[in-house]
């Protein structure tokens, strides 16, 4: 399974993957058990000369216990999964950690506009910088992203970060991540947004911290 998931390069990616694996093992066990018992019954109780089926309704409590008890176990395991999920959900979506690094990402048909506040840290000032499809962040720092859209619903998807958040016109939606490994990672759009949806993508560049400083100096030479 792990070979199919893209490499996780964020602080919460591992947590999300852990829930995935939990569910994988639980549902996998149910699958093997249920299908196994079914196939066993199909073979064992094949029609045979001289053997009649056993007449049983399953409506009494004693009999229906055979399905109610497994049903209860399903419920309890689902609750466990839900509880573990709630913890990770709260970590990712529940609280927005504070950060100095903020970027506005505005989606439109069919690319991403990234606006950096510049060294003064304020949006709407002269040192703001707009780049098309290029998101630059340092590794090891929390980055807060404000998502907007100029037209239709898009979805900001960072597969390697395990982040996905719809960008809805008329709203400003906050998301955050902290990347752990330098590299270049794609930012596809993950909500059908028109004929150019396929191929709408940006690039996330995670810099090692010193290289990030170099990038900042390049972009804002006077700082």
């Amino acid at each position: 399974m792990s070979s199919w998931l893209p490499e996780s390069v964020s602080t919460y990616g591992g947590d999300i993957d852990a829930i995935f694996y939990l569910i994988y093992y639980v549902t996998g066990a149910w699958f093997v058990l249920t299908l196994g018992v079914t196939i066993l019954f199909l073979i064992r109780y094949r029609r045979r000369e001289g053997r009649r089926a056993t007449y049983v309704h399953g409506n009494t409590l004693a009999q229906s216990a055979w399905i109610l008890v497994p049903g209860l176990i399903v419920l309890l395991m689902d609750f466990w999964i839900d509880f573990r999920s709630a913890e990770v959900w709260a970590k990712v979506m529940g609280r927005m950690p504070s950060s100095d690094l903020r970027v506005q990402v505005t989606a439109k048909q069919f690319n991403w506009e990234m606006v950096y506040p510049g060294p003064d840290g304020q949006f709407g000032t002269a040192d703001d910088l707009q780049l098309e499809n290029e998101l630059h962040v340092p590794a090891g720092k929390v980055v807060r992203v404000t998502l907007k859209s100029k037209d239709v619903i898009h979805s900001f998807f960072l597969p390697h970060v395990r982040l996905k958040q719809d960008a809805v016109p008329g709203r400003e939606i906050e998301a955050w991540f902290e990347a752990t490994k330098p590299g270049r990672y794609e930012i596809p759009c993950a909500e059908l947004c028109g004929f150019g949806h396929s191929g709408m993508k940006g690039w996330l560049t995670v810099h090692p911290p010193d290289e990030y400083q170099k990038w900042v100096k390049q972009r804002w030479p006077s700082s």
Partner: protein
Amino acid sequence: MSARVEVEEHMGFWRGYVFSTDHKTIAKQYLAIGLFWAIVGGLLAYLMRWQLAYPDTEVPGWGFIGADFYTMLVTMHGTIMVFFVAMPILLGAFGNFLIPLMVGARDMAFPRLNMLSVWTFALSSLVLLISFFVPGGAAAAGWTGYPPLSAKPIYTGVDWGLNLWILALALEFASFLMGGVNFLTTTVNLRAPGLSMLRLPLLVWMQITAAVLFMLSVGPLIAGAVMLLMDRVVGTSFYLPEGGGDPLLWQHLFWFFGHPEVYVILLPGLGIMLEILPVFSRKPIFGYRPIIYSTIAAGILSFVVWAHHQFISGLDPRLAMPFSITTIFISVPFALMVFAMIATLWRGSISFPTPMLFALGTLAVFLVGGLTGVFNGSAPVDIYIHDTYFVVAHFHYTLFSVTFFAAFAGIYFWFPKMFGRMMNETLGKLHFWLTFLFFNAVFVAMFLLGLGGMMRRIANPMQYDFLQPLQPMNVFATIASILLLLGQIPFVINFFWSLVAGEVAERNPWQANTLEWSAPSPPPHGNFEIVPVVYRGPYEYSHPSVPEDWLPQDRPAVPTAGV
């Protein structure tokens, strides 16, 4: 006593076959239209799969597919399969054919309303068909039609195509609302003497629960669709933020209906399985009452899970947990039904004709579909898999299981009753194994593609660096899907050949208990020579008090221990 002779003598071609009020004929009309759209939907899938495996090459038999055409394909494939294949076949065909027969009635409560419903459906089909040929092409905003993309023609480039899409859906909804009135009224009021609600075949319970779910959930979406049409045509801003509207409003209205809708499709398919499994296990269905309670519980719960489709839509994150909890709960009644079906097999005397193979296939496929639902229901995991092929694989496992496997099971099982002839067993078994093998090949591949992060509704995966290593999986899925489509050929041949040259069927070829098997094959107008009287429940197989391993509901006088 052939129904065909009846029709020609008494009614003529038009009243007998085209403008018929006989529920059996109406059922066949729904089946015919549904099977037509299944072929169209399958061809659309072929075009999509070729483009995904070999992007920007000429599709054999068609030509080049651009991104705009692909987006339309994806939209119409989904719309067609849900509303024009699953609904007409599972509810329109099986519901209409079986409910009056299984309750011992001569026809539905309102035969003329029934005829109006199938003609409304035919009209909606015509509108949808026309939408392919208008300038700008057919709808291309996904089967979910999210605004603002769907609310302003300039965002999709599609104008009349989307308006006609909305209109076709509105007519389809009206058709099934009319049908629902008939299903419910007939079941409640026209049951034969002795047929209490708790002696009804489970298929009837499933059909009426589906009808109730549909009738109580579709209203808000009709309202929402009127609003969408007004945004598009009149220029209002119900969903457009620049005019004070909210795109998320549509999502709520759509999924408030959309989630019960998948159970509207699922329950009749389960109903077919619940009829077939006892017949070929020669045992009562295990847990008749728990199954009914589970069905009602699932139906009620289906109204409070809808936002699990919207975890990362911009919804307040605090809403995710309540909806996750209700989603957890709803898995339990379906788990119970699966366990009950397996318990039916225990200590049975099991044979494997084609209907049974397809019923068992439905069980296996639905099991995978249900289990993979757990991944989607976990909000943090959904962050990653939302809008990827993982979701596509999940809903194909759940929906395809009932729309195709269960429907095929039902067709092979009730073909003798509908048409008076048996289908060919060899071709049937071949059809099953080809379908089962290639279906799993296609959609297991899609689970893996989804894990890799492949997004939905993209026309060319090769445009993304991180997806290029996954491309062999796309090619594999495409080849398997072509083989899956080809695997339907034995069914097409079998169906048409058996209609004219199949072995003539007796009244009750499967030795089953429910009332439809007491009528001739096929039943004439009015169904029964004498209205049956019911003495017992529908699943008295292998009862100790009789030498045969079956005991029809309407056979008098034998004392029973069952329901």
